[in-house]
């Protein structure tokens, strides 16, 4: 046993155990940990935004740039001030201009990004040959089956979300195949989620046993 003498390791161990204590029931130690986390995260975020964004891009930019590069910074500075107007009731409406700018820019980038980077490539990736010639018969069957499953899965899942026609007859049959594929996807997601949550526990337990208690 090689217990740590670093006070910060002890603080981290105390906070870890405090947060875990919530599993038994809500208590004062959990509340302390929770409040420290919220407070320190907010403070950290504020400092980070100042040093990595407002200061270098706006303050320093205005002080050291020349010409158009200097004066164009008035626009983001004004938009930031407009955003803060939300807190002054008589002029709160001005904040909508800043919000309109961010919503407009976000939508523009989001729509083009989704179309170009997600929708089109993903549709393209489902245009697959239903027969693939592999290095041997078994490989050909495996690759072909893979592609057939992919095409059937995509089409039937789309049919499941097609609500303009009542799900009866063949549409119902196809949508039932679709929901089966969707359930398999949910199952995979659930399995991965369990793995993720256990990984977090492993990380903390390893910290307690290794960094704090020095048992491993």
């Amino acid at each position, binding site marked *: 046993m090689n217990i740590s003498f670093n006070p910060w390791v002890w603080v981290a161990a105390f906070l870890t155990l405090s947060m875990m204590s919530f*599993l038994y029931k809500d208590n004062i130690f959990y509340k302390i940990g929770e409040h420290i986390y919220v407070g320190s995260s907010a403070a950290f975020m504020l400092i980070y935004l100042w040093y990595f964004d407002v200061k*270098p891009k706006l303050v320093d930019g205005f002080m050291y740039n020349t010409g158009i590069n200097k004066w164009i910074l008035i626009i983001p500075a004004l938009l930031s001030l407009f955003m803060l107007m939300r807190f002054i009731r008589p002029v709160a409406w001005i904040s909508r201009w800043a919000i309109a700018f961010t919503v407009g820019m976000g939508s523009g980038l989001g729509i083009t990004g989704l179309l170009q*980077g997600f929708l089109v490539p*993903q549709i393209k990736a489902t245009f697959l040959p239903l027969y693939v010639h592999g290095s041997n018969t078994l490989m050909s069957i495996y690759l072909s089956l893979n592609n057939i499953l992919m095409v059937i899965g995509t089409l039937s899942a789309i049919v499941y979300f097609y609500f303009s026609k009542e799900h009866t007859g063949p549409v119902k049959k196809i949508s039932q195949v679709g929901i089966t594929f969707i359930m398999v996807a949910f199952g995979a997601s659930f399995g991965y*989620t369990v*793995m*993720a949550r256990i990984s977090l526990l*492993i990380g903390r337990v*390893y910290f307690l046993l290794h960094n704090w208690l020095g048992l491993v």
Partner: protein
Amino acid sequence: MRDFLRKAGNIDRRVIYLIIFLAVALTILFKIRFKSTPLPEVKRSYEIINSLPAGSVVMFSIDYDASSMPELDPMLRAMLRHCFEKNLKVIMLGHWPLGLPLGQIALEDVARQYHKKYGVDYVFLGYRPGLQAVMLNLGKEIRSVFSTDYRGTPLDSLPMMRGVHNYNDIAILVGLEAGSVGDMWVQFANARFNQKIILGSTAVITPDLYPYLQAGQIVGLIGGLRGASDYEELVNHPAIASAGMASQTVVHVLIILLILLGNIGYFATRRGK
């Protein structure tokens, strides 16, 4: 028997938490290990980085924070080890301000182990808000977003950065993702600038990233603790992820048993009614 099954189906959740905790702790304490074969997508990521000529630039994006550290920090360290071993240059930036210091700690730690010099072998750029705008501008000129590194040193003063201007000068972008930033990298850096991307992700979002791999929009995918463990094995440096995988295996078996027990208890009780 029915009474036992009824009780088994209604175990107090706190007992389950304790069992899971003990299973994890004991597996780590007794250093139990299971052998596993690296997943093809992880092996592919390893081979891509392995095939890069010395001096190539690899950009790491830290898009996670402390809550995802157990999965992504071992992955980052294993990949950094690989990069420095191969004498690749590393640029680090990120879109999760709360997680960036974690990336910086890992970078400096691994760089120290390989006697790498700041500005010559690796650079830490830090954070800029507006992720889509940052990604798009990186494709034109890195200096338009990061005129200086995190210390305020102009990029041209750093020897490593003199020839690095945009995605054309970056061999591989490695995004370590706990949220949706990975999708943005694919949509903006890959779709618009054809940047080769490897994504390392938490297990929660890994299933959402497989379609990108299947469509060829990313060249590699390292998912969760399993992916991190595979990469550690591939670089011959088993560490915390490899140690944790045994706990994963034990806990997964336990969870399956508990699900079975819960269902048997439920059906036994229902039949009794």
